[in-house]
């Protein structure tokens, strides 16, 4: 349907959102940075100069080389090498791939739990609402890291020893999701309570639609706006939480490092003068989080008709 798409793009370029996007240079820069980081980490195999996991590609002799602009630096390793002779730039690209994977999947997972709980609680009200929201309150009183540590500990206890490293990424995703769903649930619940009383919902009831259909087809699309905004902010938070957990040593194993693991590994060399091993992954993390946060903030304002 090219006609339909043409119409869509015409409307898109005419919309207030596109206009507010265009008129803020900070947001344009942030979105370009986000795009470059996501693109280069997804296609790291093609973009990165080396594959840091291919033993044939690095040499222990190249270890602890400084970045290119320093004495001893070579143009072969733009941002220097780590203790095993791996190219820091390549490890960052491969590392942010893991970080983003964990970030996106945990946010989607948390979003699904949160939306379901929020819709059910907000629409049914009464004791269902009370029970679900008390669970959410209990959840809120634990810091995210504690929950992640708890999940990680339980999984370590249950699973056989060898399999943990393979599953580490997924354990991390579940752990982060379990500590992040409350925000979605609360937001969705309060919007649902507002939408539930509106007349279009009553009209659907008069038509005879069953409750699940009313929830999915009528209420859900109307409560999604704030959810998407929270998601962008949570994405940055999830990446940081993953980095924190990996830094603490309960996240992904050093063999498939994420940004957090890289920072932890490099941390050991910080005081012996090889600062680049930890600073560059850290910088990449800061830039990624900042860019995504700016986008999230902008989206929140752009979607709020009162602030337009």
């Amino acid at each position, binding site marked *: 349907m090219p006609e339909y798409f043409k119409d869509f793009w015409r409307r898109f370029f005419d919309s207030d959102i596109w*206009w507010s996007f265009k008129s803020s240079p900070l947001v344009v820069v942030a979105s370009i940075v986000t795009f470059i980081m996501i693109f280069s980490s997804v296609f790291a195999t093609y973009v990165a100069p080396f594959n840091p996991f291919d033993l044939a590609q690095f040499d222990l002799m190249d270890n602890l080389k400084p970045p290119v602009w320093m004495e001893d630096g070579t143009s072969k390793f733009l941002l220097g090498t780590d203790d095993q002779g791996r190219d820091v730039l390549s490890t960052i690209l491969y590392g942010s791939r893991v970080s983003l994977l964990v970030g996106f999947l945990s946010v989607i997972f948390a979003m699904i739990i949160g939306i379901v709980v929020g819709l059910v609680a907000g629409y049914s009200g009464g004791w269902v609402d009370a029970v679900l929201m008390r669970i959410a309150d209990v959840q809120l009183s634990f810091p995210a890291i504690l929950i992640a540590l708890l999940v990680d500990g339980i999984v370590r206890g249950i699973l056989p020893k060898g399999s943990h490293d393979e599953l580490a990424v997924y354990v991390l995703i579940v752990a982060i999701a379990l500590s992040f769903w409350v925000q979605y649930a609360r937001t969705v619940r309060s919007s649902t309570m507002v939408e539930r009383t509106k007349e279009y919902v009553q009209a659907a009831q008069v038509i*005879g639609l069953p409750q699940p259909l009313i929830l999915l*087809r009528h209420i859900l*699309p109307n409560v999604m706006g704030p959810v998407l905004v929270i998601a962008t902010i949570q994405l940055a938070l999830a990446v940081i939480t993953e980095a924190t957990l990996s830094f603490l040593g309960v996240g992904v194993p050093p063999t498939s490092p994420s940004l957090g693991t890289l920072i932890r590994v490099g941390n050991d060399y910080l005081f012996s003068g090889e600062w680049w091993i930890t600073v560059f992954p850290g910088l990449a993390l800061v830039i990624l989080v900042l860019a995504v946060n700016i986008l999230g903030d902008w989206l929140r304002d752009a979607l709020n008709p009162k602030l337009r």
Partner: protein
Amino acid sequence: MTLLKIEGMRVEFPSRRGSVVAAKDVNLELASGEILGIVGESGAGKSTIANAVLDLLDPPGIMPKGKVFLEGERIDGLSLEQMRKIRGKRIGMIFQDPLTSLNPLQTIQEQLVETITTHLPMNNKQALERSIEMLEKVGIPEPAIRIKHYPHQFSGGMRQRVVIALSLCAEPDVILADEPTTALDVSIQAQILDLMRKLVKETGVGMIIITHDMGVISDVCDRVMVMYRGDVVEIGPTRKILGNPDHPYTRSLISAVPRPDKRLHRFPLVEYIEEAGVPYKPIDIKTHWLGQARDFDKPKSDHLISIKNLEMRFLTVDSVFKSKRKYLRAVDDVSFDIREGEVFGLVGESGSGKSTVARLICGIYKPFGGQVIFDGTDLTALGSRRVANHYRRQMQMIFQDPFSSLNGRMRVGDIVAEPIKFHKLASSNAEVKSIVNDLLDHVGLGAIAAKKFPHEFSGGQRQRISIARALATRPRFLICDEPTSALDVSIQAQVLNLLKDLQEELSLTMLFISHDLPVIRQVCDRVAVMRDGKLVEVADTEDLFEAPQTDYSRHLLELMPRLEGLSGAG
């Protein structure tokens, strides 16, 4: 003496898509002791004039041209500080919503005393005395005690009295009242209008009343200014404008006002206002989709709907113990019958339980007690959802608020198609589509509307979409819950005409709920009057209007604006 004079005022709202001109070339003069009405439909620029006078235009509004004089002294373009001294002190304001124009965290006394000491050279004690005096003047009983109360302890009408006292207490020369009675019930509206008229005559202030309601204009205004999309269409004495208007817009507007004194078959002359879209064309019910396979049983009696001892309570104070729980009796022992093919009106003030009755009938609420008998079947006793849906399909509802009754995330075509698909009334998607287009055509929107989203339509057009959605189940019983109270009068006339055409064509039975007696008179065959959840009187419409049997009905009818000297258009 001329108090307020506006010369050549123009107000614009610049935006990135060009400037919107909200008012152009407005000229008016207001004398002391005079009430000037500004009337027009939403978006006509009435409120803009008042806001521009006080330099209170919402950003990005500007006044590029025009002069404003207050007692001969120019007040446009004053500094913020100078303007602040004029607002409240020399020009008072009364806003539409008495619920939000008082600070809920301060007592009435604090708010009055603060206003008085700001504007008049008085100490707190004198200000308090004056406050009590003002409250007495606006008719608040036991002012010395009531002044210590917070706004929520007053009813809507009492609160609007307090707002009036607040606007009068600094002895202003001019009062601007923006829709002062729109949020109030008819009975309270009448009292407030009387009060305003009395105060204007006593104190000699000049008052501008901005309203969309011809009844208010005819009740209190000396002169009227009619506005249409930013233009001043006509200005003159009330009697002249209402009785013998010059401009075709004014004529069309007046003909759209429901007449309280006689029943017309249709509202004439309403095409001037909104592009009518697709002209209404009658359909042959025998061949049309709407008439096909209605699979309704032959009526078992001549009463399609019988309400028996219906009762509804809302929990107000919860408790573990049953005996300690407190309820609000929203509907209390209500019984009436609706005959096949008639339009049955339900009238009452806000909070009388009329909307609750509608929601009980169509199953949005479960009744606390009593029966709803639809065509011989007690709907409250139905167990299974499948059986209930059989009846739900036959009764549909049109809601009051056109802005919240349509799901903003769905295309209009999908909104109308949903009931058809859910009840499997068409065999293929292509058939659904053609039925939807046909329905949209029939309510006067045209098939192109199907691809658009609800926010692209005006209030009246959205109400047409609601009607199309209700018709999509091929109902035999239609509940209209204040279907036009959120609309301008001319749009209201169009929508009522449409409902009437459909009702006659499809021989629908209708329950028509309204607080507006003239509308009831134009639309309904029989009427039930409700008060505080109880049924007061059921009568044929003409009997009720000509010879009401109960005191309350008589009282309601007396409060109805008379619209004397209305032009005989139509």
